[in-house]
């Protein structure tokens, strides 16, 4: 009897903690939506900022964020997947590989502003790309690389060993085995990791302050060497610069709402993909 009671108490406590977590998430979404939804209109999504940032829209920032995300993923996805394949399928089990694994995990813990300074020193200054989409995308790409590697590794490790053995038994080479028997079942897992890192890239401010972002620019970038406006940096700019704080704040909340919707829908996409995979495998 006492065991059951203490189990009940334990479970209700855990449930309470879960509710608190959900409460925080709900509050964030509620406040951003309540304050931001008023600013949203077709003009807001399609126009450039106007009248000293007090009206008009945030289209250049949305497009800028899109380019940065695209660039970062184009750079980090092939690199991350290749690293994961090597680490899981090819690498001899040695202490050097262990060191590599630990390094990758440590890289994931580096604060994003440090990546920003790294991008400034290496891409902006050393390679001479300047403050540009290219510099920003590479910086963001390096930042999410560990996340993509570990997601891909997990997905590859989840593929049953029997798939590989069956493929080898049919006379396939290791490369063919990876291509035909390992990657296809792992793909949804890999893509989930990639999509989640899209959400992270879209929301980061620190790595792009020094490498890609500008406070104000009209229209869309015409080359990968252009600086861009980006949603998170635009919010920061609206809250700290400019002489019309009241109107700017409204736009900043609208901007935050757009960013939130963007990230949530990307995460939702990841969930859908994962569900599909489960159904397929189960």
């Amino acid at each position, binding site marked *: 009897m006492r065991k059951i009671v203490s189990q009940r108490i334990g479970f209700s406590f855990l449930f309470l903690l879960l509710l608190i977590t959900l409460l925080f998430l709900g509050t964030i979404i509620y406040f951003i939506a309540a304050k931001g939804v008023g600013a949203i209109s077709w003009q807001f999504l399609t126009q450039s900022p106007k009248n*000293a*940032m007090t009206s008009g829209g945030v289209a250049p920032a949305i497009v800028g964020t899109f380019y940065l995300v695209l*660039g970062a993923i*184009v750079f980090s996805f092939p690199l991350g997947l290749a690293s994961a394949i090597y680490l899981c399928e090819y690498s001899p089990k040695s202490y050097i590989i262990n060191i590599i694994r630990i390094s990758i995990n440590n890289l994931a813990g580096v604060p994003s502003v440090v990546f920003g300074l790294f991008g400034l020193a290496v891409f902006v200054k050393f390679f001479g790309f300047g403050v540009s989409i290219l510099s920003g995308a590479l910086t963001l790409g390096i930042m999410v690389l560990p996340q993509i590697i570990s997601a891909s590794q997990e997905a590859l490790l989840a593929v049953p060993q029997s798939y590989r053995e069956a493929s080898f038994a049919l006379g396939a080479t290791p490369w063919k085995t990876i291509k035909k028997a390992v990657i296809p079942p792992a793909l949804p897992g890999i893509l989930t990791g990639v999509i989640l890192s899209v959400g992270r890239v879209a929301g980061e401010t620190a790595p792009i302050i020094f490498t890609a972002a*500008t406070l104000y620019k009209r229209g869309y970038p015409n*080359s990968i060497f252009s*600086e861009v406006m980006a949603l998170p940096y635009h919010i920061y700019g609206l809250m*700290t610069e400019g002489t019309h*704080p009241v109107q700017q704040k409204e736009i900043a909340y609208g901007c935050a709402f757009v960013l939130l919707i963007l990230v949530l829908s990307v995460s939702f996409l990841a969930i859908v993909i994962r569900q599909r995979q489960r159904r397929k495998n189960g």
Partner: protein
Amino acid sequence: MKNIGKLLLAITLIAGLMIPAFAESITIKGSTTVYPIAQATAEKFMDMYPEVRISVQGGGSGFGIAAIIDGTTDIGDASRPIKDKEIKKALNKGADPKAHVVALDGIAVVVNPSNSVSALTKQQIKDIYTGKISNWSGAGGSGGQIVVISRDSSSGTFETFNKLALDKEKVRPDALLQASNQAVATTVAKTPGAIGYVGLGYLTSKVKGVDVNGVEPTKDTVRSGEYPLARPLFMYTNGPAKGVVKKYLDFVTSSEGQRLAEKEGYVGLK
């Protein structure tokens, strides 16, 4: 997997197509005080010349002048004149910074609207910022701790304030440092005992600008030179302005550009 390969190829091709296509462009970096003028005039200038692309960034006066010296910007905004140290550095790097005065600005000393103090002498301001006066009762107020708010050292507003109001003496080390004019205004508006200083353009109803030596901070007193904490605002170029940059700077100093600067709360040159 094949499809993904194709997708990646397509994306790379699209990205590759984007590389060269040089429109006339101007990059502006630096002072957050000059930022609103640069932003508003850039907007209007692009209305007039749609083929020109202007990008406006903040960063502070020090950052703007450093960017001119490094050649990473076309125009460097600064709310203070260039320093000897910076001129030396520019000479070493073969840069030749040229100043263009684009507007005048007063530095308003602001307190929370609930504060009974509405006038301070320059000496009182100096004593407050250096730490000699730490309670409002020492500055004609009704008492209460003074919360001193200042700017980081990259700020041109700080440099000018430091020179004009503090005679280059050190700000008390426990002063709160904020990174922009708007951040100072917001903090003062929220903190009852706070004192801060902002460009005239940032003087809103949420903070109270105090008279300095009996002179109210207004456009007229700044233009006439009566207000003691007034300064010119600069845009720097490397060498004399040329081409589209010159065209833009001419626009900023034109009557239309000056009207925009006034609308942002600054003091026009004419």
